């Protein structure tokens, strides 16, 4: 584990914790924000509705004061209708009496006074509080067709006019309250009017600001702005023409609000323009006008938005602290792992005594450390044992090599080669030390003793038995006794104390080089081949099994040029991978295939090679020994 991986582990874990916490916070803040927004919006709606009610009441109070003044004056007009000149005093009195009223007229129907087509005395407020009067109707100003005259005359009821700009007079937006005055028969004979300035109302409305960008609109009976609340230039325009004038797209919600207001309903509606969401509360005013308060939700939620900003800031700082503390805690927790990995690396490099770090808490890491500690000790012990056993093996192997050398040295390699005699032998042990043996020696120049043996079993025990057998043969043969006596004596000496039940098969022979007579005794060994054919041999019994066994002697006379081939069963029982054995037939075939001129060495090598080729890489199970003797000539043959 390197530093980068460890860092990223801490960082990864901290990041995950922070991420999950962030998600939880976001959800919590989101839920809190939504619910607080809902509550705030609801409160805002209610307070806007209350404010609207209060505003409408205030406007109505203003209007009612004017209406009451006018109504009170109506009876005076009715009483004095036959004194036309008094009408100036009446209108003047009305204007003087009520500050709100800028002007007042009593406009009579045509020809009410005989010969007088227009009669409309009009008093109006001029600067510095004075009131002046004049006659309103002229040929140029045929008031009979003006709205303020005609509508109440036709309806027979008082009404407020649409807002209008008084260009000739007060130079401001006004509205006129017109009251139809009826005679005793109920016919309207005059209209009493009172003009009021709308600036007072608009100023009052402008002062109503529950939120910084909220505004109050007031529209007339026909839907024209008395006060748009946004722009004074819109006065007299309708909600619909405003949208057209402002170049804004028609808004379904705004249209619906306008329609609902025009129907004289009280209500509340939400609408969106661009990304701005607002709501409007609206309701009718007693004179047929309608008022509305429009508020931007951003204003409404501004307070909570600020609160949320603070909350988010606090959470962000909290998350940062959480990340840092997680990071440092995990780093601290994983520190022992880092230390351990360093120790492990050191151990891996062969420093088995590297101390492992101490772990403070009894947790998984300490368990890991303890397991590691156990492993370290086991490893140390194992390597110690391995070193020891390797050393032992090495010693044993070197001893085996020495044993093998001794055994090989025991075998004569000084092969006689002269005009009379040729001899060669080969021994290939299956293990380092084997149980096969061969031996030969010239007793005198005409007498050759030879032997080939095979101890049951292999390895060190067999090789020791082989050494005893070989020594016994040398020692006993040199007494010059007949071969069957030699074998019997070897047998007896091997039987003596042979507790391990080892035995040895052996073929021993004595060749008289001058006569060609071969005297031999077989002790349970493979038969020998003379001139490419097996010679008859008695089996007798392998040596070391039965003391006093009567071994029988055999003889055969050989002619000059005869070749004796002796071997152990390692040759005939050599196996291929399919368990097929080399066998006697193949051996005979191999020997018969050799030229007479071959040396004994070549005979041995050829047979061994043939067996080796036959086995074709299969493991050699048994020792292989071959001995080849050629009787080149005999004294008799010379003679």
């Amino acid at each position, binding site marked *: 584990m390197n530093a980068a991986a460890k860092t990223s582990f801490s960082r990864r874990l901290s990041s995950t914790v922070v991420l999950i916490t962030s998600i939880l916070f976001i959800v919590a803040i989101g839920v809190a924000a939504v619910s607080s927004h809902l509550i705030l919006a609801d409160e805002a709606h209610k307070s806007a509705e209350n404010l609207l009610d209060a505003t409408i009441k205030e406007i109505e109070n203003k209007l009612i004061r004017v209406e009451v003044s006018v109504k009170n004056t109506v009876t005076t007009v009715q009483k004095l209708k036959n004194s036309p000149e008094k009408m100036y005093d009446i209108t003047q009195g009305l204007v003087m009496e009520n500050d709100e009223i800028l002007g007042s007229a009593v406009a009579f129907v045509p020809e009410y006074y005989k010969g007088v087509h227009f009669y409309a005395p009009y008093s109006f407020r001029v600067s510095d509080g004075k009131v002046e009067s004049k006659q309103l109707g002229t040929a140029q100003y045929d008031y009979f067709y003006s709205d303020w005259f005609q509508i109440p005359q036709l309806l027979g009821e008082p009404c407020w006019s649409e807002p209008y700009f008084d260009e000739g007079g007060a130079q401001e937006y006004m509205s006129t309250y017109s009251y139809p005055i009826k005679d005793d028969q109920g016919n309207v004979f005059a209209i009493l009017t009172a003009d009021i300035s709308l600036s007072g109302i608009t100023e009052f409305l402008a002062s109503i600001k529950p939120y910084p960008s909220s505004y109050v609109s007031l529209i007339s009976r026909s839907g024209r702005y008395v006060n748009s609340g946004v722009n004074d230039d819109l006065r007299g325009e309708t909600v619909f023409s405003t949208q057209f004038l402002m170049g804004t797209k028609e808004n379904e919600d705004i249209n619906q609000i306008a329609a609902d207001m025009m129907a004289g309903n009280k209500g509340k509606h939400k609408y969106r323009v661009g990304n701005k969401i607002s709501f409007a509360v609206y309701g009718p005013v007693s004179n047929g006008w309608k008022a509305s308060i429009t508020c931007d939700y951003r204003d409404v939620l501004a307070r909570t938005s600020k609160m949320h900003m603070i909350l988010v800031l606090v959470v962000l700082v909290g998350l940062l602290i959480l990340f840092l503390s997680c990071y440092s805690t995990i780093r601290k927790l994983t520190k022992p792992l880092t230390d351990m990995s360093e120790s492990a690396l050191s151990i891996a490099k062969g420093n088995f005594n590297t101390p492992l770090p101490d772990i403070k808490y009894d947790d998984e890491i300490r368990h890991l450390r303890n397991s590691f500690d156990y492993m370290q000790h086991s490893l140390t012990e194992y390597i110690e044992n391995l070193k020891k056993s390797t050393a032992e093996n090495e010693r044993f192997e070197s001893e085996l090599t020495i044993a093998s050398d001794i055994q090989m040295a025991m075998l004569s390699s000084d092969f006689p080669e002269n005009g009379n005699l040729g001899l060669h032998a080969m021994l290939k042990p299956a293990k380092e030390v084997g149980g096969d043996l061969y031996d030969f020696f010239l007793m005198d120049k005409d007498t050759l003793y030879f032997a080939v043996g095979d101890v049951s079993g292999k390895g060190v025990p067999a090789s020791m038995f082989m050494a005893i057998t070989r020594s016994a043969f040398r020692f006993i043969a040199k007494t010059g006794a007949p071969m069957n006596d030699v074998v019997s004596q070897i047998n007896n000496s091997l039987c003596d104390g042979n507790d391990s039940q080892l035995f040895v098969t052996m073929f021993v022979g004595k060749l008289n080089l001058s006569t060609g007579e071969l005297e031999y005794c077989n002790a349970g060994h493979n038969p020998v081949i003379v001139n490419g054919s097996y010679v008859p041999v008695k*089996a007798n019994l392998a040596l070391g099994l039965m003391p006093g066994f009567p071994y029988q002697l055999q003889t055969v006379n050989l002619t000059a040029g005869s070749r004796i081939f002796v071997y152990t069963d390692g040759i005939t029982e050599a196996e291929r991978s399919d368990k097929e054995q080399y066998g006697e037939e193949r051996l005979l075939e191999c020997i018969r295939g050799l030229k007479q001129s071959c040396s004994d060495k070549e005979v041995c090598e050829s047979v061994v090679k043939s067996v080796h080729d036959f086995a074709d890489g299969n493991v050699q199970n048994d020792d292989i020994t071959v001995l080849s003797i050629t009787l080149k000539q005999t004294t008799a043959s010379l003679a």
Partner: protein
Amino acid sequence: MDVTITKNDAKTFVVLNGRLDTTNADQFQKDITPLMEDPAPDFEIDCTEMQYTSSQGLRIFLMLQKSVSSKGGKMVMVNMKPQVKEVFDITGFSNIIKII
């Protein structure tokens, strides 16, 4: 080398199956331990399915034979394949162990 030992009254039948060589000689020796411990041995060893024996195998048969002889018991090997019989003959074991 599979060894099957069945006892019938006083006589014990042993059936050998397979090759007896260096690799399994030790195991074979263990397998026939009950025979060595038999106080009154009378063995008939069936060699019909014995394919081969090495000199180590011979040694074990010899030990068995000696154990039988020392207790005055009987041991006979039957149905031996010619190539196996040859080994017994060459080494002279046929002189010590009864083979029919």
